[in-house]
């Protein structure tokens, strides 16, 4: 892992196509500009964690497959 310091308005280049700019530093928050090609996926880490957690919550035992109507009926639709 590369660790380095940057000041406001300084940039980091990653490979040919990706540039990170430090736009603002305020208290414990850093605003970063990300310039990357469209095909590069850029996400906050929490988004991945949220979707992973939601998949785990959505995973269902196949026992309930036969009883979807019952399942929804219980929810008072």
């Amino acid at each position, binding site marked *: 892992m590369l660790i380095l310091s940057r000041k406001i308005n300084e940039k980091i280049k990653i490979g040919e196509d990706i540039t990170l700019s430090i736009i603002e530093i305020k208290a414990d928050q850093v605003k970063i500009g990300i310039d990357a090609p*469209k*095909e*590069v*996926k*850029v*996400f906050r880490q929490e*988004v*991945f964690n*949220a*979707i*992973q*957690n*939601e*998949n*785990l*919550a*959505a*995973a*269902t*035992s*196949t*026992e*309930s*497959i*036969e009883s*979807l*109507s019952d*399942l*929804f009926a*219980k*929810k008072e*639709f």
Partner: protein
Amino acid sequence: MSEQSEIFEKKLLIEKGLLGFETITNYSLIQADLEPFMWLKAEGEKNLAFLVVDPFILFSDYEIDVDDNSLSEIDIKNPSDVVVLTILTVSKTGEEPTANLQGPVIVNKNNNKAIQVVLSDPRWMTKHSITNQLETRGA
């Protein structure tokens, strides 16, 4: 619904798995006993299934912008190859069912390859109520 019925009872290959289920790649998509819902059932995993639905049926304002890399991983050549599935969470604790609009499963209906993508549009979250949508449809 015509597009949806074309992929009913199909085997799906999710090469990268779903987030949190990366090692499980083979699924079958089967019609649930209640329309318009379907089950995404893991092959060879007796106790793993996900309730899924075509999100455009329930959420008329839903739209997604999927990155080109993800589309090329399942060999999408043009938009008519695409079927979108949203995973629903039905908790056992009596909370209302929710739709994960932020992490849809994109299916290439021509080769039955699929991939779960992560959307960066802040409008779509992991939990959207489907109760209101079903009432609107009169279901």
